[in-house]
């Protein structure tokens, strides 16, 4: 209100100056800057309020049992023409600019208030995070995230909101993005994935006629892995007596953005898909087709005590880069060298000795970074 009073005072002074002979042009110029800033702040505030309202509306509908349906719209189509990767990289550059020490707590508190972050969990004092990017990827105080030690459970690898989960049945199994649109698991993880996509009935048939199976894609993939990692390969693990499940977790901007291991497992392969960088918020899932399959993502595949395990970390416009603790030199959100959209993923096999990288439940795997 004091700012508005100041603005009003400036406007009155300008009016008086023009009334007295029009010598107030310099004051008029000085009014433009705060005027534009206020307009920008008001616009951002309005957009944030509208987003909060939309989120609330979706939550209310979900509470009533109404599912949001897939409805492609013009805005989603328009997004395809935007240079989202460049925008993401620019955002990353802006957020990595060092902030004056005195200003840091104010900016980080404002961020925390806007996106509901818990600052008490931050491992370091606020003025020690040199940039918003550093603050965003902050670690937590020891003991803030106790890991469920039950050996018969999987724990969440991230802080976030559960969007979807369920069991995948039969070959070509699909994960529902929203009601009315689904994408295939093999598109998400990659055609060369060693995903055990053989249905139970089909497996029995295959056992009777083993020659036929040798041509199937999934068998080939398993064979490839069995050759590549003989020490960990156990045919019992691939038996379809175990079900195949999935879980989709969305991380809001205020959430802790590091990824941890959900179980004790061995990571055998990393696959990097350099796709688009569409936003992945609630609205985007309802309007952009194949959102998770089109976006840039990193897939880690391996084995745990019950068989197959894969984690796909999907990037977005604002959170464009994915870092891996297990492979520090690995980089994503790089400038595209090729224009072809359907380029194959870049793969790295983590098992020169056939062992892979062993991770314990709760170990840090990677992180999402700004831009």
């Amino acid at each position, binding site marked *: 209100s004091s700012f508005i009073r100041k603005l009003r005072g400036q406007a009155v002074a300008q009016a008086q100056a023009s009334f007295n002979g029009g010598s107030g042009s310099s004051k008029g110029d000085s009014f433009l800057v705060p005027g534009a800033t206020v307009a920008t702040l008001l616009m951002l505030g309005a957009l944030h309020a509208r987003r909060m309202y939309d989120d609330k509306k979706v939550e209310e509908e979900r509470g009533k049992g109404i599912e949001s349906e897939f409805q492609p719209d013009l805005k989603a189509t328009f997004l395809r023409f935007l240079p989202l990767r460049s925008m993401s990289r620019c955002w990353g550059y802006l957020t990595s600019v060092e902030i004056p020490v005195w200003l840091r707590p104010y900016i980080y508190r404002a961020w925390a208030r806007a996106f509901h972050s818990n600052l008490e969990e931050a491992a370091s004092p606020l003025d020690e995070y040199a940039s918003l990017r550093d603050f965003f990827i902050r670690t937590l105080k020891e003991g803030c995230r106790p*890991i469920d030690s039950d050996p018969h459970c999987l*724990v969440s690898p991230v802080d976030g909101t559960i969007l979807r989960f369920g069991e995948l049945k039969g070959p070509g199994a699909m994960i529902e993005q929203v009601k009315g649109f689904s994408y295939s698991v093999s598109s998400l993880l990659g055609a060369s994935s060693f995903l055990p996509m053989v249905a139970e009935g089909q497996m029995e048939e295959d056992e009777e006629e083993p020659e036929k199976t040798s041509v199937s894609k999934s068998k080939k993939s398993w064979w490839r892995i069995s050759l590549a990692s003989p020490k960990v390969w156990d045919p019992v693990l691939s038996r379809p007596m175990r*079900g195949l499940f999935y879980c989709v977790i969305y991380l809001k901007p205020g959430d802790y953005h590091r990824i941890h291991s959900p179980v004790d497992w061995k990571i055998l392969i990393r696959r990097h898909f350099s796709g688009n960088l569409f936003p992945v918020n609630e609205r985007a899932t309802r309007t952009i087709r194949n959102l998770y399959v089109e976006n840039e993502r990193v897939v880690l595949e391996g084995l745990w005590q019950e068989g197959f*395990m894969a984690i796909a970390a*999907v990037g977005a416009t604002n959170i464009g880069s994915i870092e891996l603790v297990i492979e520090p030199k690995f980089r994503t959100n790089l400038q595209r060298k090729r224009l072809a959209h359907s380029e194959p993923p870049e793969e790295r096999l983590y098992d020169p000795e056939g062992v892979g990288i062993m991770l314990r439940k709760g170990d840090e795997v990677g992180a999402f970074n700004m831009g």
Partner: protein
Amino acid sequence: STVVMVFQAPVKKTVDSLSEFKFSVKRGDKIRVGEALGGWQEQ
């Protein structure tokens, strides 16, 4: 950003079997690192 997990877990082999993986979360639930997503009982 989003994380998608795909994994194998035990399913019911017989009617009496308890060793079936079940999710312990609901859609829309907020979850934090280290909290159980689901589990099964040992037979």
